[in-house]
């Protein structure tokens, strides 16, 4: 894929060092707890797995029990559910969407296709490994997973958020060069998004040694002022 290898990526597994102030600890835990109990899932069906989401959302399996509701705009959504294969055309929109979402944000890859290409592994039109383009917090196996499996997965994610382990969104800032490289590999070197990830990384103080690199240099060289997306009629 790109020159950066996944193995170079240091996995951010270390538990966050607890602050000495017990009050702050309690506060942190409270924040995590609240986060895990109220999540908005972006209403964007990327692939076939989306067909099992309406059952999961509605009366029969009722994910509102868990405090999860669909949300129509990425700016207010917490969870990006990638429901199955992403065609290259969709992947661009997925990345745009992901970058628009406010941190903390969580990505769930559903179905085989997000892991290793799934049944479309020979297809020229779909991307194969989702985590090369955006960091993924959780995978749910199945083709497609049943609503029960989706709900089980969401509960897992809640548990992870509660213990402050679902931090893959930080990885996007810390290893932006890797993700950008893979995106450029697929979309060409002219690829740019309206969101200033590097700037955001600075703001969140998540700029790491791998945030910048050869790919971000390419980005800088091609970056041009934002224009409205092509809207030819």
């Amino acid at each position, binding site marked *: 894929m790109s020159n950066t290898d996944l193995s170079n990526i240091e*996995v951010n*597994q270390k538990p966050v060092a607890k602050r000495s102030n017990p009050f702050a600890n309690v506060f942190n835990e409270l924040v995590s707890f609240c986060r895990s109990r109220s999540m908005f899932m972006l209403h964007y069906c990327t692939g076939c797995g989306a067909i099992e989401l309406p059952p999961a959302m509605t*009366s*029969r*399996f*009722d994910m509102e*029990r868990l405090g999860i509701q669909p949300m129509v705009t990425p700016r207010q959504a917490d969870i990006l559910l990638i429901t199955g294969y992403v065609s290259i055309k969709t992947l661009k929109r997925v990345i745009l969407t992901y970058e628009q979402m406010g941190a903390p944000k969580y990505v769930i890859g559903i179905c*085989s296709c997000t*892991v*290793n*290409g*799934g*049944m479309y*592994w*020979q297809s020229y039109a779909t991307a194969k490994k989702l*985590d090369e383009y955006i*960091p*993924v*917090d*959780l*995978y*749910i*196996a*199945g*083709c497609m*997973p*049943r609503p*029960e*499996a989706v*709900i*089980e*997965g969401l*509960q*897992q994610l809640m548990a*992870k958020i509660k213990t402050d382990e679902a931090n*893959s969104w930080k990885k996007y800032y810390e290893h932006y060069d890797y993700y950008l490289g893979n995106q450029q590999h697929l979309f060409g070197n002219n690829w740019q998004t309206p969101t200033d990830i590097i700037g955001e990384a600075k703001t969140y103080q998540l700029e790491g040694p791998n945030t910048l690199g050869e790919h971000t240099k390419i980005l800088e060289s091609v970056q041009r002022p934002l224009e409205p997306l092509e809207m030819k009629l």
Partner: protein
Amino acid sequence: MKMKLKSKKAPVIDHSDSGSLLNPLKNLQFLARKPVTEPLKPRLASLNYRGFHLNDWEECVGCASCQKICDNAAITMVEIPGLPNDPVKGIRNHRPAIDYGRCCWCALCVDICPSSSLSLSREYVHTCDQEHIDSYFILPDPNGIHKEHFGKGWQKTEHSDLLSLTRSVMAELEPENRIDNFDEIVDGFTPEQAVLEASRCVQCGMCHDSCPTNMHAPEYIRAIWNNDAEEAVRQIYRTNPFAHVCGRVCTHRCEDACSIGIRGEPIAIRWLKRYAMDSVSHERIKEIVNEGNTAKSSGKKVAIIGAGPAGLTAAFDLVRSGHQVEVFEALPHAGGMTRYGIPDYRLPFDTLQQDIDIITSLGVKIHYNCIIGKNKRMSTLRKNFDAVILAIGLSQGRQTRIKNSDHRHVYRAVDLLQKISTGEEIELPHSVAVIGGGNVAMDIARSLARLQKQQYGKVQITLTALEEQQHFMADPEEIKESLEEGIVIKDSCGPQGCEIDNDGKLTGLKTWKVTSIFDEQHRFAPQYDEEQEVVHNCEAVIEAIGQFADTSLLGKELTEQLEWNRGRLQIDENGQTSEDWLWSAGDCVNGPDVVHAVADGHRVAASIEQQLKVKTQ
């Protein structure tokens, strides 16, 4: 417009009915209805749910059919050390591992599984984070992905089975039409039948592994399926110059190992080989065999004693490597046991002759009627040749040494078969008792049955053997066909002696009922029930209990020089004897089996080739 315009009556649903103001009150009834919401815990899936894979390792043979049918390239075959791995039985220690990043749970792998070991469970929840993505690659076992029991879901049924388990039918002579002649019984496949039969193959390669000479059966079956008989011949000749012979009388270990044979009838690999050979002209086969043969003469000479399958296979290999090969055959025709031991109805002489013709056309020189020890001495061979191969086969019949077995109407099967095959007149008895349950016993019984039918109009042959019928050494189809031809089989009969009347005429064979054949140490020690004594009336008794090699041609001096092991020549794994110029191959080393002999011929030829190369350097 001439369209079918049907006007419907008033709509079923009256949308103009705006209803009453009290309509919302109707909704109060919902309070009394059962809620539809399911508990948060995952439900149990249906009885044939297609969940995660299960694989019964005891059943699985590692044939990789699942890997081939998988449309998503999700299945990797993994070798598991410690599991049984027996090519002869058609078992490999490979097991499928499944990539849930590819799988689509279509269960085609379950439906094709020849051993029915794969199934899908009713378990369907698996989640993991990026760091544990390796958990998407699993090695299914009977315990399930999370070692929790959910029970089997989708399993193969008779409806969903994708394999074709029955052979395509081949025409053969009916018993009444074959009993009075030596015509070949089996017709061979028509092209349509052959392609259909070849299409049953799942290309697992078990046949290749189990074959003594590792014939490329999957490749030639595929070639036949592609209607490319010439390619099939090319694949066959990679390992077997006795292609016509093996296409007819091979002991087909491949078919015993065939994966399809686990639940159904194995692919008729032998008949397919025969089909390939029969459908290409003799001249074309010669051309195919000669393709790419550019070996230059090496100036080395090899002598081979015995023009049977082992000897001629070695000759075939060596002559193609550029050596000069001379074969010395005691009898007037080449082929050894395949010529003199196998009756015409199983292997017509002219098809055997085709194989031999191809070998001789390469430049192998055969000296017929040349008996070593009589016409030529071993020492001469040793002097004139760089290497000598002893491929003398098993020409002498073993004797039972029961009472009166020295009577002149007690024959050895191999001697009689040889006479019958050369067309020599024999004193044909009206009734015969055959001792033995192997293929040779069947051959002699069936040959005599044909002669009896021709000359006397009826068959009176009794075949007795120590074993029970299901444990006979003979092929099941031989037994079946013998019965069809009117041969009486008496199993579990131990021969005790021949009955002779006062005139010295043989009148019968006395047998006792066998209670057990082997003792506790699995040594041959038959036990009899003397009370169940039967006398089978007959004019002649034929012993078909095995053969041994006649090594008298070696001469006294050489016999003493060589190392022996329990009466057999001591050889290494390459067939070389303790003398560095003498090799031994074929039935005299392995016991009777054509395809083994061919394998042996290759092995010895390779060993000689290597040694000659070393010498040249």
